[in-house]
């Protein structure tokens, strides 16, 4: 496939792998966090760790939009969906996320009208088609998807569609990175920076990571060679004693981001004072809500949202997984009580969740597979 195959070439990967290994200081161990769930998915799907020397550990970060939604927020959305005359619309990977009382899929099976859409514009299309219903879009995601939600609100306003609303759960990536940096149980040598998010916000917002926290960060694309190249760039910075923000994904990410997209977000939304993240707790300035000027499209203003708070199950360690404090398999319930078919934690649901990626792609003994290959 054009524009894809050239980023999945095994020969190039082996050459990079050799170069990375050559940069390792003897006896030193390295830990890099890939912030994005999309990167985690790529790493496992392509078996990228097979190209890394043992001295390098990849730590999976909190950048999975579905994973960071707290259970109470799912219950709130289900409460909205179960009202008469409401059609709830959501991205597909949200359908199976369990709240305190089950998931969208369970609620749908019990009669709520919940539909899967590929974009908020599809949701607006449904609103046009069903003027007698109130259509709510369950908006999730980092800055990657925020502009499309904001655009859709503007479109609805321009067309005078009054039966469309957004239940806004958009979150911001830098407050999450700050929370990670301030977390006491973590030792990192650098970050593989978000790719899609950076197409919107650019690389400038990460400068404080290098400047104030002394950690290099390389904005990376989503193909396996992108990630391997980013790791090489991180290793090179460490070897040369540099600590900078670098852009591996320059073919897509402009250094200053996308001013038009940022303007659209700013027109429609404002930063919330605080927002609850699954596993990470309340993080200041970490999410967006609609501005008062667009209150007519804000499900939280139109309806009285229950504001349910559900504590994570006692055994669930999603928080530690999202912070990178433990590997997915180190969670007490990983693979036994919590599996992709009966998930307890969000990290086991989304394809971008670290637990789902490890369970679905990485759940095998590398030493045994190596031995089997040699026999």
């Amino acid at each position, binding site marked *: *496939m054009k524009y*894809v195959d050239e980023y999945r070439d*095994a020969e190039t990967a082996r050459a990079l792998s050799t170069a990375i290994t050559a940069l390792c200081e003897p006896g030193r161990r390295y830990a890099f966090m890939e912030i994005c769930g999309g990167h985690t998915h790529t790493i*496992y799907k*392509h*078996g*990228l*760790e097979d*190209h890394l020397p043992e001295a390098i550990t990849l730590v999976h970060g909190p950048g999975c939009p579905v994973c960071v939604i707290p259970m*109470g927020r799912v219950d709130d959305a289900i409460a909205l969906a179960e009202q008469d005359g409401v059609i709830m619309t959501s991205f*597909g990977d949200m359908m*199976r996320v*369990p709240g*305190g*009382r*089950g998931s969208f*899929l*369970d609620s*749908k*099976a*019990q009669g709520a009208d919940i539909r899967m859409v*590929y974009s908020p514009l*599809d949701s607006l299309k449904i609103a046009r088609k069903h003027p007698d219903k109130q259509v709510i879009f369950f908006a999730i995601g980092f800055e990657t998807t925020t502009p499309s939600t904001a655009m859709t609100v503007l479109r609805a306003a321009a067309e005078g569609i009054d039966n469309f609303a957004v239940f806004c759960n958009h979150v911001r990536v830098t407050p999450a990175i700050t929370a990670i940096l301030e977390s006491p149980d973590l030792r990192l040598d650098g970050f593989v920076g978000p790719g899609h998010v950076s197409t919107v916000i650019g690389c400038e917002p990460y400068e404080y990571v290098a400047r104030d926290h002394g950690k290099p960060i390389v904005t990376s694309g989503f193909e396996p*060679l992108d990630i391997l190249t980013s790791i090489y760039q991180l290793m090179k910075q460490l070897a040369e004693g540099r600590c900078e923000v670098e852009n591996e994904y320059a073919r897509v990410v402009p250094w200053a981001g996308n001013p038009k997209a940022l303007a659209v977000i700013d027109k429609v939304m404002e930063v*919330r004072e*605080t*927002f*609850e993240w699954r596993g990470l707790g*309340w993080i200041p300035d970490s999410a967006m809500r609609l501005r008062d000027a667009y209150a007519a499209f804000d499900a*939280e203003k139109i309806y009285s949202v*229950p*504001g*349910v*708070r*559900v504590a994570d*199950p*006692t*055994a669930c360690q999603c928080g530690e997984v999202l912070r990178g404090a433990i*590997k997915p*398999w180190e969670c007490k319930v990983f*693979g*036994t*009580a919590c*599996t*992709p*078919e*009966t998930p307890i934690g969000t990290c086991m649901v989304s*394809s971008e969740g670290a637990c789902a990626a490890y*369970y*679905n*792609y990485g*759940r*095998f*003994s*590398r*030493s*045994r*597979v190596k*031995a*089997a290959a040699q026999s």
Partner: protein
Amino acid sequence: MTAHDLGAGIPVRAGWAEEAVTAAAAEEHHGAGRGSREEQVLERIARARARKPRLREERITLSHGAGGKATQTLVEAVFLEAFRNPVLEQLEDGASLRMGAERLAFTTDSYVVSPLFFPGGDIGDLAVNGTVNDLAMCGARPLHLSAGFILEEGFPVADLRRIVASMAAAAQRAGVTIVTGDTKVVERGKADGCYVTTAGVGLLERPVTLSAAAARPGDVVLVSGPIGDHGITVMLARGELDIEADLVSDTAALNGIAADLLDAGGDGVRLLRDATRGGVATICNEVAVASGVAVVIEEKAIPVRPVVNGASELLGIDPLYVACEGRFVAVVAPERADAALAALHAHPLGAGAARIGTIADDPPGLVLLRTGFGGTRIVDLLVGDPLPRIC
């Protein structure tokens, strides 16, 4: 800061999650594990997976029809539990029955595809080919089919005629006759136009027993042609995605090509499976578990059309899980693999056939993929359904 932003009230805990943890802990047998901590966890998971599946949901969800883990759980926990007998227990594509001196293969399948008509075929083609293929995969010569129709009030007769004409033509191509049937009509809104159920019988004339449990280390895994055409075609035909592609369904009767393969491979053919719901990945998993072997697939060897690859990439799905309606996987003894592949290539439906992997002994029950990138990963059963109602 508003009260709302802080959330109202004291957090509660999710009762179901606490119960699930307790239940899993009760089933866990603590034994002295060997190897690293990670390997002990892997062994614990393997034991958890080997346990009898429990159906936790109180209602049927779309996942139960997806052909993945949820379907398997439903079948084993509800149907097999109630109907249990030695024939059903094998959970093959069809049942093998002894009737006096003859051995019969018997199978049934329902079709709910949406849309009813799509490039390369319609629900009628699927209903005949699907059941013919289930018989062919048992190694049988398909003979007779039944056809049951559930029609929605208001369904156009012209559409029904078109579907039935497709069925007649497909039956003729496959060399089978439709010998009995049934019709039901339900009120408008109680069905989606037209559902079709077919059952079929065939004769098991060959002295081979094909079974998902018959794969042995060293065997070769073949696929009869490029995968995923049908699933992607139907998905695009719904027009919800605004993607256009030059692609048609692969729906076809496989009894001819399967017979050629069996002639060439003889008793070296361990099993045949048509790669319908859940795709090639699901079949490989069934083989790995039933035979207690590892199935090792080479990603670069899997035939996938560029347009299917492209659409899958856009949709975020893996072609390995996308349904075909005219492709099958064969596991063949190594010494017969070349002859078997040559027989596939010689048939018009098998021009794109390829050798995609091998059977190994370790780790048992897993499907491993050697990625084009040079890494290794698992190919697991799917949990959700990326593409509902494609057959």
